[in-house]
């Protein structure tokens, strides 16, 4: 079955996943809305759980957030394992509160990106190729910026 022929039905009577009919039965907008809601609730739950563990694991004092003397270059930042997803995940399994919080933040950061990725798909199904292009362009600029900003 050709996936771009939305009129054609397969032998079992169902439409291709790229056809408007498949999605209008299921309402695209509702999917985005639910996706976002679950993403947000997940991020919230993870962060909250991590926060509670973090406070229990701490000794009641606040880490040193104050600016260091020595100005701009003296900034130390958070511990290195808390900066990258590959080092955060192993620590989650050890119930490290700080790592769990950071993971919640990563899930949070992913929600708008997933929302936009879903928009691309939605525009594709609507055959709005102008906006498939525009959205991909925006994603491209953002990822290029992210990538080159790291160096």
């Amino acid at each position, binding site marked *: 079955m050709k996936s771009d022929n939305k009129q054609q039905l397969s032998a079992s009577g169902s439409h291709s996943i790229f056809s408007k009919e498949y999605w209008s039965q299921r309402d695209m907008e509702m999917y985005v809305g639910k996706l976002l809601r679950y993403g947000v609730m997940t991020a919230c739950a993870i962060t909250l759980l991590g926060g509670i563990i973090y406070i229990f694991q701490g000794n009641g004092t606040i880490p040193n957030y104050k600016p260091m003397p020595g100005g701009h270059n003296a900034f130390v930042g958070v511990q290195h394992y808390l900066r990258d997803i590959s080092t955060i995940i192993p620590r989650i399994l050890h119930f490290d509160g700080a790592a769990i919080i950071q993971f919640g933040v990563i899930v949070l950061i992913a929600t708008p990106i997933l929302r936009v990725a879903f928009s691309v798909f939605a525009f594709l199904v609507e055959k709005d190729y102008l906006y498939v292009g525009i959205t991909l362009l925006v994603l491209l*600029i*953002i990822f290029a910026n992210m990538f080159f900003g790291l160096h």
Partner: protein
Amino acid sequence: MGLDIVNVELFSLILFLGAIFAGMLGALTGLGGGVVVIPLLTLGFGVDMRYAIGAALVTSIATSSGAAAAYIKERITNVRIGMFLEVATTTGAVAGALVAIYLPTNIIAILFSCVLIFSAAMSLRKKNQVIDYAAKGDPMGVRLKLNSSYPTKQGEVSYNVRRVWGGYLLMSLAGIISGILGIGSGALKVLAMDTMMKIPFKVSTTTSNFMVGVTTAASAVLYLQRGYIDPGLAFPIVVGVLIGAFFGSKILMKANVHTLRLIFFVVVSFLAVQMMYNGITGKL
């Protein structure tokens, strides 16, 4: 200093309450997180500006997603307008970040704060005007499929977008400025859509929130890797802002637009004053 007197539970609680407020305000005005969170941390607790910026980024994303999650089928945000203008903001931001090295940041901050107050005042004057949003708009708006409608208490209201390229230019400027200064993009986004393109206020604020979430997510990854995002700060903020933005978004549906404009004006003025202060004292 504030940090020496409180213990971690109290500090987290204060941040949490501040975050709820920030989220609510963000959902209502389309501004990101910096306005409340940065002064709370830097002036209130003496936290290093970089941690504060990391926290503000997290606030912006949480505001954007929290506000959007309030409705399963929210039909106010105009994704096409948002995506189209995002091209302008993102390219502007890249340009701004590149150029920032050569520019006197504090002077730009002072100029920007003047522009902000002026444009916010202009936006406020309109609260007594009755604008016919459905009047014929820019043909470019039709070509780019930007025109739409949104639900209100009085029923569905159509709107046609004006001055598309003017809006695009202004958005590029907004992007450049936020690339240089790091904050303030939400305010300019709302103003560009509301004042230049004559888009209904609630559509401008929700679409701004959508846009802010997208661009901020990109910077957030960078800042995470540079160690600017601290878990102890992130946790009360994420939870608080999500809650605040969720309920703020619910309130937005029923809110009176005149009241919203007034709140927007007050918050933007506060932002402008902060920026002027930071510019003059050389913190930026």
